[in-house]
């Protein structure tokens, strides 16, 4: 018995060490600056190239790079035997609206920000970093040294970015999953759930009984069930996918303010459209409040109207901040390996053990957070719906 435990412990430590070593070797090529002579040579040809080549590992920049949206799905960087740096990523469609014209092409045309295409270019520095900007073509054929002028005007960027791709992929997966389960429900009508169905049924019942029924009420909850269930599973599923470090996971979907904002906006729309007379009366003419809070200066209505918008705003920020924070902490622990690795390779290996342990711990907490945040977003939405349809 004791021997078994010892073996298990040794095995665990070995797995950790392997993981540490793997992760170091995995990231190593990306973080080691290329040979200086080559760097120099390249920068002569392409002046914008220099900014990409950092001399040192910049943890903050790397972390932000991992959690924000991007126009390509970055897989890995590696250096081949000749020391040349390769950048592997999945190209994504770029869709731009500029001066009434639609431009569509693959993001591979930009060569990871090294080239411009069709008068557009992926900005790699400054205020618009990561956005697509317009370059003025007339300036491009100037003299020997190609100097690009940048236009202040930004095209309307409707590209299917990394997060948009992740949203589409996860939506397709969710549809396949739940439509399959729905079929099974219809086929095995009065039987006990089986397989994935029995895995997800408690969650569906949880959303129905503990979220919708308890906060909206027995009579009216049915109307909101499709939205609440979609919301809950979309957030939960994407939270979990966000923790998977490789394709199709790894996109920080629920930690993106645009995504959480859209979901909060949907909640806001449903609140506004399902509000009954009493709900609006409560906002514009709050009962049970002294008249002088309403009449010369409409203090209460103003507060209530602000409240109308703070509710979805808080929903948006809470989910975004929680998920992003979790990702930053995990990436921070991973970054520690490279910060120490840059000082000395052995430090890197040493720290990797601790870092992997902490990342593992954080990932487990993130699993919990993934559920809790999905629950909180759905519960609060349901509570707001309950308030709007409440009969006094």
């Amino acid at each position: 018995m004791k021997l078994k435990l010892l073996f298990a412990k040794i095995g665990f430590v070995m797995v950790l060490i392997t993981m540490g070593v793997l992760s170091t070797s995995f990231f190593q090529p990306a973080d080691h600056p290329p040979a200086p002579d080559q760097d120099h040579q390249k920068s002569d040809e392409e002046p914008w190239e220099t900014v990409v080549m950092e001399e040192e590992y910049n943890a903050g920049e790397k972390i932000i790079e991992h959690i924000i949206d991007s126009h390509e799905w970055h897989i890995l960087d590696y250096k081949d035997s000749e020391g040349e740096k390769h950048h592997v990523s999945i190209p994504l469609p770029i869709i731009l609206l500029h001066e009434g014209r639609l431009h569509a092409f693959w993001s591979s045309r930009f060569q990871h920000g090294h080239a411009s295409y069709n008068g557009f270019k992926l900005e790699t520095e400054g205020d618009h970093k990561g956005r697509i900007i317009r370059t003025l073509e007339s300036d491009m054929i100037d003299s020997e040294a190609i100097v690009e002028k940048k236009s202040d005007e930004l095209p309307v960027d409707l590209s299917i970015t990394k997060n948009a791709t992740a949203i589409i992929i996860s939506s397709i997966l969710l549809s396949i999953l739940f439509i399959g389960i729905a079929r099974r429900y219809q086929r095995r009508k009065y039987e006990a759930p089986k397989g994935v169905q029995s895995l997800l049924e408690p969650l569906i019942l949880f959303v129905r009984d503990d979220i919708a029924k308890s906060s909206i009420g027995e009579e009216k909850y049915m109307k909101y069930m499709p939205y609440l269930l979609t919301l809950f599973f979309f957030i939960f599923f994407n939270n979990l996918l966000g923790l998977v470090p490789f394709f199709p996971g790894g996109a920080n979907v629920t930690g993106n303010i645009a995504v959480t904002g859209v979901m909060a906006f949907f909640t806001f729309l449903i609140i506004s459209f399902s509000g009954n007379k009493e709900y609006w009366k409560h906002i514009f003419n709050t009962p049970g409040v002294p008249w002088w809070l309403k009449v010369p200066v409409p203090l209460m209505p103003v507060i209530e109207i602000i409240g109308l918008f703070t509710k979805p705003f808080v929903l948006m920020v809470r989910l975004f901040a929680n998920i992003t924070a979790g990702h930053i902490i995990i990436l921070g622990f991973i970054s520690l390996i490279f910060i120490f690795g840059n000082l000395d390779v052995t430090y890197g290996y040493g720290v990797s053990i601790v870092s992997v342990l902490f990342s593992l711990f954080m990932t487990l907490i993130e699993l919990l957070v993934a559920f809790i945040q999905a629950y909180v977003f759905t519960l609060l939405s349901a509570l707001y719906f309950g308030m709007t349809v409440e009969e006094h």
Partner: protein
Amino acid sequence: MELVNPGIGLIFWMTLVFAILIIILGKFAWKPIMKALKERETFIDESLKAADKARDEIKDMEFSNEKLMKEAKQEHDAILKQARKTKDSIIEKAREAANEEADRIVENAKERIENEKKAAMTDLKNELADLAIEIAEMILKDELSDIKKQKKYIDKLIDEAQLN
């Protein structure tokens, strides 16, 4: 793209995809799932109720069975009791009748014996009288063969008669 600066493209795609997802899942997943769940719940509910009812019915049936048994037993007992009673009374009556008959027979026998006795006595008396007369004749004949003796005897008879 900045961290807290939402990209217009992502907002557009998210809105589109999320709206489509709500519609698709709402129509093809949540509606049938919620319906099936509800149906299953009512089915289970009804089944439990039916089982409860069946149990009650069985209990009722058991109760009525018991009652029937009890009644049957009571009836059985009553019949037995009645039978015993009848038997006893019959025996009693029979005994009484037998006693009466016996008494009557005894009475008759007694009467007849009495009569027979009387007849026998009468016969015996007659016999005796005859016998006495004969004896007396013989004695007298013998006695009276001598005058002295006759006289003595006559005297004695007279004495006796006077004494009586």
